[in-house]
């Protein structure tokens, strides 16, 4: 049913997908977590309102969020080239994925933080907690369950985006599925790719939910 070469190709694709999605999620959070914290903190009902900064971050986030990913991929080719030296392959896929994921992650982090009970925040303020103490000890600590649910959602979304990157020469299973499934109509390659992608999302979802449940000490 498959040649040895095809099996190796799919395995290599799986590995590339894991690397692409893992690294992109990581760097997505490196940018998105501070962005989300800043959005939540500088908003008019945040702990350090700053209308100007909020507006700028808000607009930039919205602009990036409203460009369809497949277009963003094309638009970002010069940036990708500048950073990794070429516009195709595994490393090249990561650049646009991070740029697309960061604002999306930022919004999720913002909404997780805004779920934290305002009374508790005011209590911490009156007890003399500075802004950074509140962000760390109250906002992020209390929102951690919700933040982790966000990570599993981000992982799934980035995985979806990574398949699109296959259309413009990115690496990973998505690119294999497009090349062999769409361009050559080879169901024996297409379907294993699809099934592996589905399993990957499922696995991560289950894992993420389990960790977030263990971390949630509100109920025991």
């Amino acid at each position, binding site marked *: 049913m498959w040649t040895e070469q095809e099996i190796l190709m799919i395995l290599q694709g799986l590995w590339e997908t894991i690397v692409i999605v893992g690294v992109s999620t990581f760097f997505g959070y490196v940018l998105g977590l501070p962005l989300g914290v800043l959005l939540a903190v500088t908003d008019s009902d945040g702990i350090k309102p700053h209308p100007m900064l909020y507006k700028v971050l808000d607009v930039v986030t919205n602009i990036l969020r409203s460009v369809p990913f497949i277009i963003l991929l094309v638009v970002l080719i010069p940036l990708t080239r500048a950073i990794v030296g070429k516009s195709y392959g595994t490393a090249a896929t990561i650049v646009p994925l991070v740029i697309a994921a960061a604002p999306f992650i930022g919004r999720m982090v913002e909404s997780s933080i805004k779920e934290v*009970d305002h*009374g*508790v925040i*005011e*209590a*911490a*303020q*009156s*007890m*003399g*907690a*500075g802004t950074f*103490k509140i962000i760390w*000890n*109250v906002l992020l*600590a*209390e929102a*951690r369950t919700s933040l982790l649910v966000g990570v599993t959602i981000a992982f799934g979304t980035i995985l979806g985006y990574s398949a699109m990157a296959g259309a413009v020469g990115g690496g990973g299973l998505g690119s294999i599925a497009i090349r062999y499934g769409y361009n050559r109509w080879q169901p024996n390659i297409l379907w294993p790719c699809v099934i592996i992608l589905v399993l990957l999302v499922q696995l991560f979802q289950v894992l993420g939910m389990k960790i977030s449940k263990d971390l*949630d*000490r*509100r*109920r*025991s």
Partner: protein
Amino acid sequence: MNGSVISGKNIYKIFKLGEERVAALNGVSMEVKRGEFVAIVGTSGSGKSTLLNMLAGLDKPTKGEIIIAGQHIEKMSEGELVKFRRDHVGFIFQAYDLLPQLNAIENVALPLSFKGMNKSRRTKEAMHALKQVGLEKYMRHRPTEMSGGQQQRVGIARALVVRPEIIFADEPTGNLDTKTTISVLHLLQEVVHEAGNTLVMVTHDNNLASYADRRLHILDGEVVYED
């Protein structure tokens, strides 16, 4: 001024509502002595919560002087106020406002972590404060596993743990039933009279205020009488 922890002179707080200027506090002068349990009594809108916010260094007066523990807080910057509250003031809230993810010890230790105290000392101090409020059996319980009265005891321990010059309580029994209310008020009396703390409680309820040593009745932003 000997022995007074708080002294307020001619405190005004004026809010602008569009073109109109509304005086929430209209020249309040008052004093709280060390080791005293004082109640500020008034209906909603009387200015009692505004006064509490001023006295606790959460907000600054438009005019007037507030001296707490020898320091003029009306002259402090926002950053100085934060530090002042961290070092000198304890708070008890109506809705307890405990962190749901933390157990009793961790909740009580929280204000100490804001002061930068190390973890083992924080835990020790927190356990001591929880014993003081009679919760030795609930040290590792989380807020959702405790009754309202127990949660408020944790709240009281959290205020005590910083060994503040003064503790402020804003309607501390507002969410509790009558029986629990009485036991919490007895605990507050104990905290003042036996442990030597100073407590200012804000309430709309004259019956609750009767547990205090002294009552300041406030109406339309002025202290109308004391008893």
